[in-house]
Every structure is written in C-alpha cells, then in structure tokens.
C-alpha cells in the first residue's frame, strides 16, 4: 500500500484543494491576477479563481481551487498515538476500586484570565461531551472543579489540600501564547511545592496545544482538540494505577 499521499478531490492523485483568503486590494482584474499568483506560490497548479468579491472599497475575498504539488509521506508524520488502553467508565471504576482502594481525586481549573470553562466542563461535568459523561459521573473519581480564572497558587493550594492524584487544566481562549506561559507557570509552581513522588499528575488540554509539547511544558500529558472524558479517565488510570491489568 502506498504511503505517499496527495489531497483527494474526486480522483486519486488529483491533489485538489480549496482555499479562501482576502487580499487588501480593490476588486479588479489585477486583484484576481494577484490571487492566482499567490495560489501558485502556495504550491497550487492550474489554480482557478472560482469566486472573487469586494469587501468594502479596499479588500477582495477569493475562493480558489487548484492541485497541490506537494506530497506527504505517511511514514514521516509524527503524532502522539494513544499509548494506553481505552476503558469504559465501569472498567475505570473497577480498577480504581480494586487497585487504589480509595477514590481517585481530580482537581480541575481554567487558569490565568481564561474565563471559558467549556473545555474543563466538557471533561469534568457530569453532562460530558460527545455523548460521553464527564468525570463527575465516574463513581470512583472524586472531582473538584474550581472553574474559571483560578490563580496558580490557589490551584496548587487546593490540590495539596485535596491530596489530588491529578490536576487538569484547560486553556481555551488564549492570545500571544498565554496558554503556554500559564502552563509553564503552573508546572513550575507544582515542582516547587512538592517533591516529584508526591506531585499529582499534571494534565493540560485545549484546542491550541500541541500534544507533543508535554515535556517542554513540564507537564505529564497534553490533550488537544477532540479529547473526550473517556480518553482522560483511561489515561489517569493508566498512569496512576501502575500494576498491569490482570
């Protein structure tokens, strides 16, 4: 099977892509020529300007179709594959009960100025996301959701007080890489407060994160777009309950 791919329009290997963009020029013939030239420089052969529309006096919006010259070798693609088994809520509960012998405590928060709790709530609230119930639904998990705009010291103190096994931090709305700064600050604060063997598992998530950046950010795991509560619960059990499943 070939491991080299191109985009697919309606024929294998045609490379067809669709892009849209705005150029800061009035809509005229020159603007369309400029769009075609840009498409060529983006690596599109035989670019077709299928739509061009003025936005106000000084801008033009384009939709362009063309064949991408570029190839992708699937063997050279680097991703973080799931390296733990996906468990059902019942399996999670059973494992925690049998092997931990107490409830597994998760403390969650949105840190910094981020007031958008949609991510942390999707993972923690019983309501859940994508048809999966959140961690509050898991009988053997004890969830403390601190909500929005939690200061890092407050998060650390609460995690200590609750003897958290894991700390979940969500960053949704971020500007100027605030999510990265906040995460590093949080990781550093936990390193300072606790020796490694006592430190809770640090997990961050949000649509802007790169899943490969865990080590660089000083956390144990990064979850990105499309993560469900089941993914998180399975990961926590995998890491916190170390004995292999019989």
């Amino acid at each position: 099977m070939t491991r080299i791919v191109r985009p697919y329009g309606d024929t294998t290997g045609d490379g067809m892509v669709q892009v849209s963009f705005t150029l800061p020029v009035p809509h005229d013939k020159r603007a369309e020529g400029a769009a075609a030239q840009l498409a060529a420089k983006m690596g599109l052969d035989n670019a077709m300007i299928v739509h061009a529309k003025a936005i106000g006096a000084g801008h033009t919006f384009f939709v362009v179709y063309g064949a991408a010259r570029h190839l992708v070798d699937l063997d050279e693609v680097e991703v973080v594959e799931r390296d733990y088994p996906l468990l059902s809520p019942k399996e999670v509960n059973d494992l925690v009960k049998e092997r931990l012998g107490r409830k597994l405590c998760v403390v969650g928060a949105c840190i910094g100025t981020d007031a958008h709790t949609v991510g942390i709530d999707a993972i923690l609230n019983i309501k859940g996301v994508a048809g999966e119930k959140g961690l509050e639904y898991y009988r053997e998990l004890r969830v403390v959701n601190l909500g929005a705009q939690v200061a890092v010291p407050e998060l650390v103190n609460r995690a200590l007080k609750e003897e958290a096994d894991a700390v979940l931090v969500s960053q949704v709305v971020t500007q100027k890489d605030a999510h990265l700064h906040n995460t590093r600050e949080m990781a550093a604060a936990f390193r300072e407060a606790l020796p490694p063997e006592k430190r809770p598992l640090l997990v961050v998530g949000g649509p802007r994160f790169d899943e490969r950046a865990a080590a660089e950010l000083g956390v144990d795991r990064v979850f990105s777009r499309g993560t469900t509560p089941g993914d998180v619960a399975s990961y926590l059990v995998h890491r916190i309950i170390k004995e292999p499943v019989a």
Partner: protein
Amino acid sequence: MTALLPLDPDLVERARRLAAQAGQPVVDLARSRTTLSVERATLRLAGLTGADPDGIPWVNRLVDAVADQTGIEHGAALPVFHALAQGNHPDLTRLAHASAAGGVKFELPTGGAAETARGLARAAVGTGFDRIDAQRRARADMVARIGDPPQRPWIYLIVATGDIYEDMPQAQAAARAGADIIAVIRSTGQSLLDYVPEGATREGFAGTYATGENFRLMRSALDETSREVGRYVRLCNYASGLCMPEIAALAGMNRLDMMLNDCMYGILFRDINPIRTFVDQRFSRQIHARAGIIINTGEDNYLTTADAVEAAHTVTVSQLLNEYFAHEAGLSDELLGLGHAFEINPELPESFRLELAHALLARQLFPDAPLKWMPPTKHMTGDVFRGNLLDGFFNLAGVMTGQSILLVGMMTEAVVTPWLSDRDIALQNVRYVLGAASGLAEDFRPPPDGFIANRANQVLGEAVDLLGRIRDDGLLNAIADGTFGIMKRPADGGRGLEGVAERADDYFNPAGEALESSEEEAR
C-alpha cells in the same frame, strides 16, 4: 406580533408574581447597602476624573481614603464634600491629590456643616446628570433626524482588536457593511479589575478596555458614520464586573446606547460576590434608566454551560428575574433587551422546532422588550461550512419569531476572532435570510396543540415550578446551590464582598437620591 402560543394567562401572571416574590428580598438587601463602586460612580458623576501616575483612578484613591477614615457606610459624599467645603482645595481633583499625599482628614459633618456638604454634593452630581440628560436628548435628536434602521431585527456586530484606534475604523466599516449596533468587547478579565482604566487604550486581551475616553472616541466615530449611512448606529458595551456602577455612569455621560447588564452573569461566570453584584446592579440599572440605555441581559450564557433543552426553563426564569429587577430600577420594557440563544445540539431530532418554541415563548412573554437573539457558539465545531448553515437557521428562527436584536453569528466561532471575510460572509447570510423571508412571520402559525405550542407550555410550566422553589429557598440560596448554569456561588464567597457595606442611618448619596426621585417621577 400577535400572540401565537396558547399560553395560560394565569400561569404567566403566576410566573411574574413568583419572580417578584423571589426578587424582593434581594432588592431590599440592595437598598440597604452600598459598595465602593457605587461611591466611586457617585464621585464620577460629580466630575472627578483622571488617575495617579500608577494609573489608579482618583475616584479609587479618594474613596479608599474615605473608607479608611470614616468607612463608606455613611456614603463618601458627606465626608468628601465636607472636606471640600473647608476651602483648602479648589476642586475634587485637587482634594484627591492632597488626600493621596496624606494631607486630608475626612470626618462626618453634623448640623449646618452637614447641610452645606449635602448641598455641594447635590450640585456636583447634578452636573453629571445634566450630561446624561443632554446625551439622552442628543440621541433622540439624532434618531429623529437621521432615523432608525429600516428593518427589524437590528443587526449587532462585535468589534474588538484591543486598540481603540483600530476599533474605530473597523466599527465604521462594519456599520457601512450593514451593522446597526456595534459592540466593543472588553478585554478579558476587565470585570475582575476593581477600577476603571483611564484614557484611550491601545492594548487589551481579546478585547478593548471599557474607559470613558474609549467610549467617547467610539461614539464620535459612529456619529460620523451614522450621518454617512443615514441611520443611527448604536454603540454597545458592558456594565458588568466589579465596576458596574462606574461603567454605567461613564456610559450615560458618553452616550452609549446599549449596555450588557445581567442580574446574575458576574456571579455565575466571574465568581463575583452575589451581594456585591446585586447592589452594584441596582444602581447601574437606575443610571441606565435615566440615560435611556437599553440593557442586554445574558441568558445565552446559561446555555453554553448547561444543556439548551434541559435548561431552557432557566432562561425563562432568568428573563423574568431580570425583568423584575429592571422594572424595579426604573427601566421600561422598551429598554429591556432580554437575552436568549440558539444553542440546542443540532444533532438532536427536531432541534430547530425546539428553538422556534423557545424563541416564540420569549417573544410572547415579553412582547414590548427588544429581545436579543444570540447565535450558536457551543455547537460550532470548527467545521465552518456546517457553521454557516447553522447560522442560517439561527437567522431564520430570528426572523420567524420576530426577534428585535440579532447578534450576527460567525462561522469561525471557536476558531479565530472574526476575520474581515468572516464578517462579510456572516452578513451575507443575514441579508439573504432577511431578504428571502422577512415576512415569513406573517405565515407562521404553529397549531395550538402542536409540537411547538406544547413545548413552549412545557418550558413555561418548568419555569414556574423552578421560580416557586427559588421563592421558597431564597434567590441567594438558589444561586449557591447551582440552579443557574450549574455554577455554585455562595452569598459569602466570590470577589468583592469586602467592598460592600450596610448603610448607616445617616447614609447619604446625592446620586442615589436623584435616581430614586427620577424613578418616582417615571412611575
């Protein structure tokens, strides 16, 4: 529009009565307290502006000094104007400078000295009310001369670059492209600042700071564009957070036309103390009433955290509470932009019919209120094509159910802050639906025993049940128990409680006094 739903009038009346009973104790609590921000707003109305070299406004410095020396339970006006009456300081600003340098001793005057201080204070805040009244007349004049938007709903667009000097041309471009209302989103986290930044600002996070000068600049840019496009383009901002009363005063004096001002948003979503919020809110709503500013409430937010079908009745409950608090503060129905949103999971069968039922229920319960219809955000996934379709259905529901203010949905919601092209595509979507179906409401007659009517009645029934429980438990307890938006907010928790004081018997606030009497006159 005519009543389309067979709602039981007794049930509707019962809902309003329960909302009033649930709200009354909170109003009593608000009337018997003051806050740092209420006192600062009073000094702003009296003309105190500017900030110290660290950017801390003089109103903060002065009220903090009074709070240290006499406390705020008597009101700041009495000690401040008594100090001014001694004649050592020519005006409030220089009194604030001297006070910051530690050179003013504040004390509570009695007898004739108190009368003198009260007289000075009333005259000073009178200048602020004169500005507010003049701005209200200026708005009415411009609307009479230039005109309102030709269509309903009014089209509401958001601008927010962080830099007021970038916002102005963007807002003007948006107005030329069809926006009837420009909302300038605030910098993330401004609601948690216990002061209002001063002057024109050029840096913000995901928004632009609300300041008096930014208000003035943007209003003047939109005045210019209103004349150019031949309709009065309204300006919207946020009277919320720890400085709600001050921002309301700045809005009134600088002719903002709409302000987001929800009775519970700050409590639930910003963890601001409930009592602080209710005290600040009452004062800010009184100012909005005086200024003729349309408030926008934030019920859409509940549906971003809770399920839009299961929690539909919490929207109705919050609308009824917002209505009660607004009326109590002197706002008429025409100034009551109650919110609701198109947030039902589109995967749910008949989701559009459910949306129509909820939207019609709000329309019929509040026939004279300029309802604010909010677009989908929770189920915008990054699939911009599906997002554009969903926004089209949102627009259609808005037209079919006679909504008054339509916040334009962006297909790139949850992806980027809107690009120029996103806004253009979104407005094209609105224009198509308005053009193709603006009269559809005339033909839309859901059968009285059909799905839509039954659903609306069910939601109203659930709302009445919940209002009954809230009345029995007390609103503050209901908020503490997580009744709204799942957030649990106890009355003694959250930010800003230390800035609340119970009014002493001799409490004096010349602004509060004037607002109460203009409210009396309005009745």
